[in-house]
């Protein structure tokens, strides 16, 4: 069966606007430009393009091994929105650890395996801005000039971060079934600066009626995870995590959410060591729990 997708851009509303690492200024400008013509964009989305009825889910290796509940929650959110969710058993890791350590040949090998695992022209929904950034921004760079360049470009065009997809493509409405609560959001660096999806995450969370959203002081600053950075430069990483956890604790929030399990693993682990601190949850798991009946 052919998916109801004529051309990919409609399921990557922010991706078409950004996609260049760090140069968020350029993205800001484009997003601002888009904001002015926002209604036009929306009209075009509904006019020309149909909602996908089937999506791929890329679980990420971190979620696979350490936080599978997050992955399941994200898939159930998609399923409840009426989508058929495919979880290819051939998926493994996006390859970012090797890529950011300089081992590009190894990263390329892993990247090709992911291209193989998601062959159909379907959206690839990713519950991590960091991994989504690897698939969307870095695969085309990594595979440029190889036999897989075109495949990587097409794949990158299909990749969309979970909250971006839920907010801007599905325009998901949420019925908040939980008690009033204060929630701190840590928008990951990839969500802010690489993909520009942090505002989609915030918008989605704002649709929970009884959730008070707060951001810690110096919200823009990195939590100190940085993948292998936490291992290669443990002292700096720890100093950054200490400051971030203090800022989060100062918000008095009961829960800390983020788009990225890497950040949460870093901050949760630091909180667990220092004692106290909020409950740590990926945004998908938090939303699933707040909106499901059997909670």
């Amino acid at each position, binding site marked *: 069966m052919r998916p109801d997708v004529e051309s990919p851009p409609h399921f990557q509303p922010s991706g078409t606007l950004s996609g260049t690492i*760090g140069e968020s200024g350029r993205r800001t400008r484009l997003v601002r430009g888009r904001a002015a013509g926002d209604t036009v964009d929306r009209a075009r989305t509904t006019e020309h393009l149909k909602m996908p009825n089937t999506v791929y889910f890329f679980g990420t290796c971190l979620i*696979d091994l350490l936080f599978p509940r997050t992955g399941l929650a994200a898939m159930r959110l998609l399923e409840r929105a009426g989508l058929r969710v495919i979880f290819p058993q051939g998926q*493994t890791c996006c390859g970012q650890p090797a890529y950011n350590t300089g*081992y590009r040949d190894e990263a390329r*090998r892993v990247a090709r395996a992911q291209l193989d695992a998601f062959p159909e022209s379907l959206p690839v929904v990713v519950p991590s801005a960091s991994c989504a950034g690897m698939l969307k921004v870095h695969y085309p760079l990594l595979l440029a000039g190889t036999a897989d360049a075109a495949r990587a470009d097409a794949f990158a065009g299909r990749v969309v971060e979970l909250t971006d997809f839920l907010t801007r493509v599905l325009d998901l409405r949420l019925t908040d079934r939980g008690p009033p609560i204060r929630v701190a959001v840590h928008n990951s660096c990839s969500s802010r600066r690489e993909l520009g999806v942090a505002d989609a995450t915030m918008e989605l969370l704002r649709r929970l009626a009884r959730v008070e959203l707060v951001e810690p002081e110096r919200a823009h600053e990195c939590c*100190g995870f940085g993948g292998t950075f936490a291992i290669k430069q443990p002292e700096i990483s720890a100093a950054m995590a200490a400051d971030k956890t203090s800022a989060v604790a100062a918000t008095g929030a009961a829960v800390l959410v983020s788009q990225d399990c890497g950040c949460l693993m870093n901050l949760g682990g630091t909180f*667990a060591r220092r004692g106290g601190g909020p409950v740590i949850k990926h945004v998908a798991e938090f939303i699933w729990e707040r909106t499901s009946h059997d909670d």
Partner: protein
Amino acid sequence: MTTEFRLAIGAALGRERVRANIRKAMDGLVSKRAAAFPDADERERLRDQGEAIRGESVSRLPELLEELERSCTRNGIQVHWAETGEDANRLVLDILRHAGTTALLKGKSMVSEEMGLNEYLQHAGIEAVETDLGELIIQLAGEAPSHIIAPAIHKDRAEIAALFREHYPDQPPAERIEELTALARRVMRKRFRGMTAGLSGVNFAVAETGTLCLVENEGNGRLCTTLPDLHIAVMGIEKVVARLDQIPPLLTLLTRSATGQPITTYVNFISGPRRPGEQDGPRAVHLILLDNGRSRIRLDPELSATLRCIRCAACMNHCPVYTRLGGHAYGTVYPGPIGSILEPQLHGLAERGEMAEASSLCGACAEVCPVRIPIPRLLNRLRFEAVNAQADSPTLGHGSRRLAGQAGLWRLWAWTCAHPRIYRTLTRLMTALRPLQPTRIKPWTDTREAPRIADQDLHRQARAAGFTDRL
């Protein structure tokens, strides 16, 4: 492996007072920059312009330098080429000896720091007198700059007051900022008198007109370049720009990105020595063009973006690593994000490659860079160069950080992740062995609890929950 850099990091993180000083100062610079760019559209247009202008400088570097030499020569500026810092030092010394001078007034110049000029002159019996307030402070303290535009930013007012008390005991005691700057001014003014040679850096040099552009806030730069009979300007070759009309956008990008100022207190356009009939200005102007590895950096089409830098320091002001370490921990002339891409290229990956690893790739630097240097991407590239030995790479020390054991582990990891069956077997094994998971995993658990492996991986849970594998 504990390197010198790692030891310095540990020490820097332990210096609470310095950390607090730097953090406070960086917070100030960050908010000033933000306030200086109230209109995001204008800011992004300017950054586009900055990128294009500096990109032209780098791509046309050889011809622009030759044009600059011709224009300067026409204006009466004597142009010298220096391959290395040592060559540049020797040129300065020769010029000073020829003029018969034993002391040199210095305006702030990072290139002179790169050359190690002060030390070189000292050995040759020539005193270098720093006139920039920040440079003066660290010269008194016997330290190196910790920041490229605010060299003494790691010191607070009380520390500076103590330094002045120690070195200027005949001066009335100063505590408040106004008193401290007034004291420095009194002391420096005396030094200016009778000096016959001055040295400055160059922010931009205009090829078409032979104009040297220099920004500063204290007026000492203007004194250094106009009061003595001899002015020597030193610049990295990449500071050339093609046309005079490219200067205004660069200047406003520079000052707003650096200190949040719409323009600096002094903007000097130096277009040659004193002409017949003029009342003041130097009688001779020399320009030293320093390469010191820049031509080599330029050979790489991606890494050459490093040379677009206009030394505004916005990247370090916004860097979560720099704000915690300060500049000294890096042990290099250029610290922070720009240092982390520049130093490994100038001095080689074997010696400075670890700087490229001291980043979480958060992207805060690239977000503010006025000339859009994609710093995280270049850091990633340098990490690749460090472990990958491609014979034709122009990057100094490429492949030098490759360790056989580490490379083998990554190969094994890639093999696992490229074979889903093997990967699934491994995750299944890890979840089965979950009870045996160690609670201490260094260095992660030095400051954090380790995450627990799940009792069942997502691959199996997804299948069990009925999520299909394919279309």
